[in-house]
């Protein structure tokens, strides 16, 4: 059973979308923690 082009594209696109969101989310959380003085 071979993975179709559509399923393959969706799998990689979703993974890439989450990976792209990760640094944005981490920086947003860092700014939030820093403002609340809860960095460490």
């Amino acid at each position, binding site marked *: 059973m*071979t993975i179709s082009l559509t399923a393959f594209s969706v799998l990689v696109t979703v993974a890439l979308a*989450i990976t792209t969101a990760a640094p944005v989310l981490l920086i947003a959380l860092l700014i939030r923690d820093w403002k609340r003085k809860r960095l*460490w």
Partner: protein
Amino acid sequence: MNAVNSAILDPDIGWAILAGFSVLWVFLGWYWGRSAGQLDEYVLAGRRVGLALGTATAMATWVTSNTTMAAPQLAFQIGIWGMLGYSLGSIGLLMFAPLATRIRRLMPNGYTSGDFVRIRYGHTAWRVFLAISLFYSLGWLVSMGMAGGILIHALTGIPYHYGMTVILGICVGYTLLGGFRAVIGTDFIQALLILVGLIVIAFLAIQHIGFARIHAAVLAERPELLNLLMPAAIMFLFNNLLFGIGEIFHSNVWWSRAFSFREGVGFKAYTLAGLLWAPIPVVAGFVALAVPALNLNVPAADMVGPMVTAKLLGATGAVVVLIMVFSALSSSLDSLLAATSILIVEDIYRRHLKPHASAEEMRRAAAWIIVGLGVLTWILCAPRLTTLAELLYFTGAFVASTIWPIAAGLFWQRTNAAAAVAGMVLGSAAGLYSYFAIGFYVAALVGAAVSMTCVVLGTWLAPREFDWNLLREEHPLHKGVLP
């Protein structure tokens, strides 16, 4: 063709990148270490780490050089299931999330995973656990040190011993200067570098080649890589899953983070880290599947990621890969040095050798042990024995046998201590036997299954009451004298 001739990057550029990042990490280690004079500040960053740094450190530590290099290799060798199987490593992080909350609540003064096993199961279990944990830590340290030398050599042509010495020396240097604060702070930057590098490479692969061409080329030349029913790959998937859970559940690398996180942060940080980590092997693996479309001749499967990147981006691509690999190696090595150091200080130095050691003596011992671990790792990495690089895979049986003793000990009040010891010993032995008799891909599976049988059966036949309050044991250093 030797590696210097086939290296993707000029050695001078390689040295310049290594020097630049080394100066940055050591400076940051010194800067963040200025306020880490006291023991808790040095080994647990003051137990006040917030969500952003907590998430990034869990994520960056779990992104080892294996994730950035072996995930493409696995995709190239076993296809779609290689990518998906590797991404199941995130299950360990996700499953540790509730454990982190429980650990922080039950042991507000705890330092190590050894502390838990000693109080929960007694001294025999503790010593068996320490042997497993230290063996695993050494295996991980050696595999990272050797990977550093080999990858830097393959990417830049810099001799193996120089590259290995630089990566070990830098990690020891900034961990020594800044302690756990330096580890967590640099992990944040390293996580961003790894993610941005991966995103750039993946977008370029899509833009330059496209999904349709990659899919069609793989289907024409290596159709088995797109096969969803590949038995060996499915077996790998389950073994990798259990290996990952065992690594995270027992290792002080993850426990020390649970102790260092601010109250209420552990669950969110590990959950978020797991969710953000899961797609990384898929994206890294996808890059490798571009090989047929690019008509690349790959001489060694473990170099597939850098080769595709260099083809797409030229020398710039090689620079991106070197920075990613250096970041991935550093973020794991520093964490391992810091967590193993406090495990040795608390569980061996203080509990076995010097029971009345002061906080200052323990702080000093932690620093010396970081240096000692660096030197020991260098000595073991120097002969470049491939059998030593495989040591980490060998530990699969051992770490998987700790899953049930740890989880049942944290959540079941009646877990039998003798059953936990039997689980670790018999699970390790059975896993080891299956490693040699069947193959590496079943060692963790068998180790976990035997250990589960021992713990569940032993507890069912002879349940033992445990007082959770014992885990709130006050550390002598917290009794109002020293922090």
